């Protein structure tokens, strides 16, 4: 069911044959002359010669030189004009030439626009009544009704609509160029033209309704075939045939739906173009003169700028000297972001509040402060011992330590002070130790220690 794949042609082949496929402007107008004046009839050489002469007299072909008639004739003889068999001096247009002339005339004067799109839909999308019973009839409608006719005709019709809207919009764009009162008359004409297009828009809406009807009818047909296929009563062989019918019907429905989707998009575009142009006409009815003047003034300004500005190596263009320079409110913003590279060694840290045990902390703080006080006392006594030693030159360490123990009521402070004194004793001192045991309340026992400073 899919369209036949055509083998791509090499560009060089097209390049070589192009001159034979399409006539140039002059040749085309000669062909058109012949097509109009000798429809489907034979021509004599003299008549073709006259057509060439007449065409060369058209105002836009006046080059001041005569056309070479024989050369043009031979050019046409390639593939646009052929001799009638057995009649040496009689010629006809080739079917290819006729087709080319018809394509161009249809492009300029689209025949579909004369007929409502609804009629085209009604004629070409009419589904025969008994499609649900006979799959060959559905296939036949699809092949000959849809693929060969309806699709082309509706596409042609839509193309015609689109071109006529585009042409009207192009013509409207030119309205603003006219700097005289006739512009309003021109606008009135275009308004009429757009009213015609408004009618086309209504037809489009009707066509969409019909399209929806065709779509639903096809859906029902597919459902009927699906129902037949799922009927378990059928014998196996028969069921295979039904399945095949269901597949064909579903495929046909899909292809028609795809075409309708395309139609929808084209209709949307045509509608949007018409709506925009119509809204501009409504806006302009009051202020056509102003807008037209604005456009002409803008053009004058551009022409002045183009003719009086100068090329400039630095700025590219330098404005005319007296032209007023203006400024735009504009400021460049720069956002700088530091890129984060995760290479594995950066570890995320999440700070969290330390949990504490207030009672334990208080008890530890007491111990800590007590320890600090002890160390401060040790330091104080040590410094006192040093001072006394330097003044008196001799000191009895055991007696002093017992005094400290008594004073501080702490054996530890006394012992620590003793260690500090011994550890920091200067080299010029002498320690005399007599092994006579001294005792402090039978708690601490020390030998008699005397430090002398030399």
């Amino acid at each position: 069911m899919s369209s036949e794949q055509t083998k791509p042609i090499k560009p060089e082949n097209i390049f070589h044959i192009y001159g034979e496929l399409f006539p140039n402007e002059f040749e085309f107008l000669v062909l058109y002359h012949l097509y109009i004046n000798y429809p489907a009839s034979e021509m004599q050489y003299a008549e073709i010669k006259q057509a060439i002469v007449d065409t060369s007299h058209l105002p836009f072909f006046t080059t001041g030189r005569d056309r070479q008639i024989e050369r043009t004739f031979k050019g046409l003889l390639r593939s646009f004009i052929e001799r009638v068999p057995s009649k040496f001096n009689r010629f006809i247009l080739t079917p290819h030439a006729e087709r080319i002339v018809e394509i161009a005339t249809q492009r300029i004067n689209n025949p579909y626009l004369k007929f409502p799109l609804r009629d085209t839909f009604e004629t070409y999308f009419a589904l025969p009544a008994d499609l649900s019973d006979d799959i060959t009839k559905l296939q036949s409608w699809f092949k000959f009704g849809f693929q060969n006719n309806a699709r082309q005709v509706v596409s042609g019709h839509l193309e015609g609509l689109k071109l006529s809207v585009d042409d009207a919009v192009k013509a409207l764009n030119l309205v603003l160029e006219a700097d005289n009162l006739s512009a309003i008359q021109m606008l009135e004409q275009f308004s009429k033209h757009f009213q015609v297009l408004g009618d086309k828009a209504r037809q489009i809406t009707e066509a969409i309704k019909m399209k929806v009807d065709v779509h639903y009818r096809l859906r029902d047909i597919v459902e009927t075939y699906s129902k037949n296929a799922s009927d378990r009563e059928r014998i196996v062989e028969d069921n295979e045939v039904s399945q095949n019918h269901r597949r064909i019907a579903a495929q046909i429905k899909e292809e028609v739906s795809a075409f309708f989707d395309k139609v929808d998009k084209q209709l949307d575009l045509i509608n949007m173009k018409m709506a925009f142009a119509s809204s501009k006409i409504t806006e302009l009815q009051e202020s056509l003169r102003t807008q037209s003047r604005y456009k002409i003034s803008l053009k004058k300004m551009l022409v002045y700028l183009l003719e009086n500005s100068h090329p400039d190596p630095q700025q590219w263009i330098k404005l005319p000297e007296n032209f007023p320079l203006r400024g735009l409110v504009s400021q460049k913003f720069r956002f700088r972001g530091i890129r984060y590279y995760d290479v594995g060694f950066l570890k995320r840290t999440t700070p969290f509040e330390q949990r504490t045990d207030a009672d334990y902390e208080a008890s530890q703080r007491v111990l800590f402060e007590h320890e600090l006080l002890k160390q401060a006392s040790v330091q104080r006594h040590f410094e006192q011992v040093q001072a006394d030693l330097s003044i008196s030159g001799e000191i009895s360490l055991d007696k002093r330590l017992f005094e400290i123990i008594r004073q501080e009521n702490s054996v530890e402070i006394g012992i620590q002070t003793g260690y500090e004194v011994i550890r920091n004793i200067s080299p010029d001192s002498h320690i005399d130790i007599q092994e006579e045991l001294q005792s402090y309340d039978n708690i601490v026992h020390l030998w008699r220690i005397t430090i002398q400073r030399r």
Partner: protein
Amino acid sequence: MPSSPSLFALLDEFEKDFAYYYDVLYRLVLQRRSYDSVSFFYLEFPEAGKGNLSNPALYAEMDGKITVVACILANLYYSNYFSYDKKFQWEEIQYEIEHGEHREAYQQLFFNDVRPVFTDNEWDSVRKQFGTVINFFHRIGLVEKEDSEEQIHFTILPTIHHFIEIYKNEIEQIDDFLKQIKV
């Protein structure tokens, strides 16, 4: 700046407040305009001076290339007044320079010469200059670019009226203005 629905919604809701803010802080005028069913905002200098933006870093002077290209775009916009799409590409500008009604003036200004043919390098240089201005217009929201930075394929937005308004007095009195400037 380029169209931003959220920014527009914000300005739309607090138009008066923003207008007051710009007036008090910068001495600028917040303008709201509607063309072709599109509303937009832009900031304008007061009638005299540059408001509080006298520092050159805070505004863009419309030099020769910006003014000429903006004028070309404004003309293109009006030439396609009734067209739904106002999309253009470089090839159309190139056609205008090569074959348009004012080709000689275009060529003289852009190439400093009038010739039937220009080299690829010459075209490339003009194309680049034109592209730079289009990119700037895209940034300030006068056009919307379709493709990447390199391509010149853009839609002229109704905001092109911002340029037209900047030279409104001159355009409205064009004949007097041209007479006066030529003296």
